[in-house]
């Protein structure tokens, strides 16, 4: 089979549907991942991301759709193909790590090799190589029950990659670790994935994790895809109100597109408590003049100043300040709306103070509702 036939994509999901009872958990989604890339399915619990992953793994049988890996069909309801999970040659790291407590660390890691009936000396070599790669040298010979959370995590990863699978799946692998360890493991996982170059699909509800690790992110909700894009694009140019709200923190305010320009800019009309404002912004995808839209702007792009600035601004009152060391989180009430503002601590905004809110037009985006 030719690479061109697969359009350069390694993993392809086509129109995947999975019901649980009457609930459409995965609602006809399609996406693809190029070889060697790291894709993240991001969304809140119940958005269908884990279900999608389980379908790729073969642990769930989709109600319809097609899953192709490297040109070979793993699942196709149309062609009535369903490959058993053990025949898919996929490595998977589970949320609970699923380290077998009745085996030693090495036995856990060598299991996939034993199943494939590889000779003993090669198993030893490959297990030791992997153990060094994931940094578990100290745990050799230990019982699986003696492992800490981070070590279980490493063991699970080692077991998933030891037989050099064609695809690597992660089901929220970091969610059971404490914050410090989680941050370290993010970098570590990314390093190892990069080193072995296996195409990976990663499921998480943690947007920071997704931004740090992924080549590409798919934001999901209620069984369908909200947006697909690189970490930077997802953060800077959310496609709609949902994504904007889910990734990072955003000020979202309803409005109407008043005017558009050719250069992808627009003006949005916002009415709030009797005050009517026209604000310049970037035009999000799929919007045209007269459309209902939401204005989306990150707190770091909202400025609260004491003197009335040039251009459109909103006069309001500082109602809350939270000092976080490197910055100051403020809330400014303007009419019925509360602006989330990230200010510099030097500005020493005080609660009760009257300020003017100004938006950074280059980082203000009109998005679909």
């Amino acid at each position: 089979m030719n690479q061109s036939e697969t359009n350069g994509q390694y993993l392809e999901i086509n129109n995947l549907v999975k019901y649980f009872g009457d609930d459409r958990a995965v609602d006809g989604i399609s996406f693809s991942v190029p070889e060697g890339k790291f894709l993240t399915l991001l969304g809140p619990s119940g958005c269908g991301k884990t279900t999608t992953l389980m379908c790729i793994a073969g642990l769930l049988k989709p109600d319809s759709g097609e899953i192709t890996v490297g040109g070979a069909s793993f699942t196709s309801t149309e062609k009535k193909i369903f490959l058993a999970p053990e025949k898919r040659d996929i490595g998977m790291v589970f949320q609970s790590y699923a380290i077998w407590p009745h085996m030693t660390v090495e036995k856990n890691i060598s299991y996939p090799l034993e199943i494939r009936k590889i000779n003993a000396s090669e198993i030893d070599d490959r297990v030791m190589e992997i153990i060094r790669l994931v940094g578990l040298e100290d745990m050799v010979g230990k019982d699986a029950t003696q492992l800490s959370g981070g070590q279980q995590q490493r063991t699970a990863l080692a077991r998933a990659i030891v037989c050099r699978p064609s695809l690597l799946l992660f089901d929220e692998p970091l969610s059971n670790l404490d914050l410090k360890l989680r941050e370290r493991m993010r970098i570590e996982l990314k390093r190892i994935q990069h080193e072995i170059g296996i195409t990976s699909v990663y499921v998480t509800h943690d947007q920071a994790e997704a931004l740090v690790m992924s080549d590409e992110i798919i934001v999901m909700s209620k069984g369908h895809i909200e947006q697909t894009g690189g970490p930077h694009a997802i953060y800077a140019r959310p496609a709609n109100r949902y994504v904007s709200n889910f990734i990072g923190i955003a000020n979202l305010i309803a409005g109407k597109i008043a005017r558009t320009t050719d250069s992808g800019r627009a003006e949005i009309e916002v009415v709030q408590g009797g005050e009517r404002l026209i604000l310049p912004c970037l035009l999000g995808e799929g919007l045209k003049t007269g459309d209902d839209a939401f204005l989306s702007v990150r707190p770091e792009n909202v400025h609260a100043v004491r003197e009335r600035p040039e251009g459109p601004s909103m006069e309001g009152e500082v109602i809350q300040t939270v000092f976080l060391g490197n910055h100051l989180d403020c809330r400014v009430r303007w009419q019925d709306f509360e602006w989330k503002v990230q200010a510099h601590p030097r500005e020493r905004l005080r609660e009760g103070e009257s300020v003017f809110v100004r938006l950074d037009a280059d980082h203000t985006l009109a998005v679909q509702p």
Partner: protein
Amino acid sequence: MTTEAAPPEFDLHTPQKWWQGLFTQERIATTFVSLVVAIAVILPLITLVVSSFLVLDDLGFDTEWGLENYRELFGDRLIRKAFVNTLMISSGTTILATFLGVSLAWINARTNCPWRESLEPFNLIPFFMSPFVGAIAWHNLASPKVGLLNNLARSLFGIEGHILNVDNIYGIIWVTGIFFTPLVYLFVIGSLRRMDPSLEDSARTTGAGLITTTMRITLPLVTPAILSGAIIVFVTSAGEFGVPFKLGTPYGVETLTTQIFTKAVGDDANHYLGAAISMSLGIITGLFIWIQRRVIAPREYTTVTGKGFRPNIIDLGKWKWAALGFNLFYIFVAVFIPLICLFIVSLHPVWEGRIIVEDFTIINYQKAVFWWSPEAIESATNGIGNSIFLALTGATIAMFLAIIVSYMIHRTKGMGSRLLDYLCLIPIGFPGIVLAMGVLITYIQTPIYATLWILMLGYITRFFPYGQRNISSIMMAVSEELDQSSRMAGATWMTTLWRITIPLLKPGIFAGWILLFVIFLRELSISIILYTAGTETLSVGVYYLSNFENEPMTAALSLAQSLLLLACVVVFRRIAGREALTA
């Protein structure tokens, strides 16, 4: 370039025909086992229902459809009396066992009663013993004429007549009650131990006293467990055959189980009327079990957390000695004196209620136990080998079924898994003698009748849910991801079952196996319906000796059976925790 990314050592991506998906290992194994279980459980029940509407004519040759059996059920004075007796015995037993079980559990779990850790295993011994043997022992201890205790009272205090009499309905309640006490005890002590002590502590901090806390917090939290235990006792004693048969039938106290027995094998055997009586008993017990499982068990709040807590211990002061005395009294009447009495009786050529040391003999053992001795009575000694064979093979087959059934209930979704869950409830809801009646009528015309296999079928059908519960409790605690990760590692369903699932379930499998082994070794009410000459079991041997030989021989075989069961208790305690017993 080719995109066959599979490593060379592993043949992948073999194109599949759509129908190959239907014949996965998992599907074949689970379908096969579900069918076996469904047929084994449902077929005898259907036969029972159907044949209860078949009426035997006066000559006993022909049958026709009708409600005559049920009319007789309500019309026949004897059956009506048996019905009332069954209800009285079950209620009395429930009250006695609940009182004993709750107080013993509280003493052991929550007070500073001395030596309570050492007493605990003894409190559970009656659970493993045969109540039928208990009835035999108590008959020899406290029947009016030959009761050892009555004779001692007569010679020591010069009393005329007797002080104790167990050959009546109260005797049946007494023996059944002390033998079923561990059922309540196990439910309640589990609940008391798993209770978060902060629930009581927080009540104390609001100013509630010790007694208020016990009554308002502790007791309500334990109530579902007490009710569960009580219902299990009610149902089990309604289905108990051995005790009323020994202490009731010869003295005119019939119960539904003894009536079923006479209709199954007696001179005026009428299987169809027997089926009708079985139906009426089965409907009562089934209803109670359904209430326990669906209404009461889900309310056992304290079991939800499943964490190990260190419960609050109450200082009883001087009363702790009374608590100790109470507990010792229980062990004494339920374990020690019955066993000692059996030993004494078994040494006499004939038993007249008095210990005569000069007459001591081992002839009873030669006749009733030593199957190799020339004097051996085969109807009694056959049972030893038969029961050991049934217990070994039966427990193994039943646990195999239990593993697959638990897997289906907890690891697969959809109709099949829910139906199986119900199927496993059915045998628990029907007394052994009822199920055996169904099995008898179903298979009497087949080649398995008059073999050990029909007994095996009855045993496994009735008791495999007990083994299944042992496995299920562990399977629920073991993450499904442990199985799934093995599949992802390239192992087939069968390899995963063998290398991951079963090793993880090992403690539950062992516990369940030994529990079934013990139950099968002492089983009476199924065996008594299904045995024929040559397929006697241990308990049937005891029955035979008690009915056709004398008390000393009966005592000899009873003691041998009890010692075998006691040995199992020791092994059981080594392997399983006490939690494993709660059926």
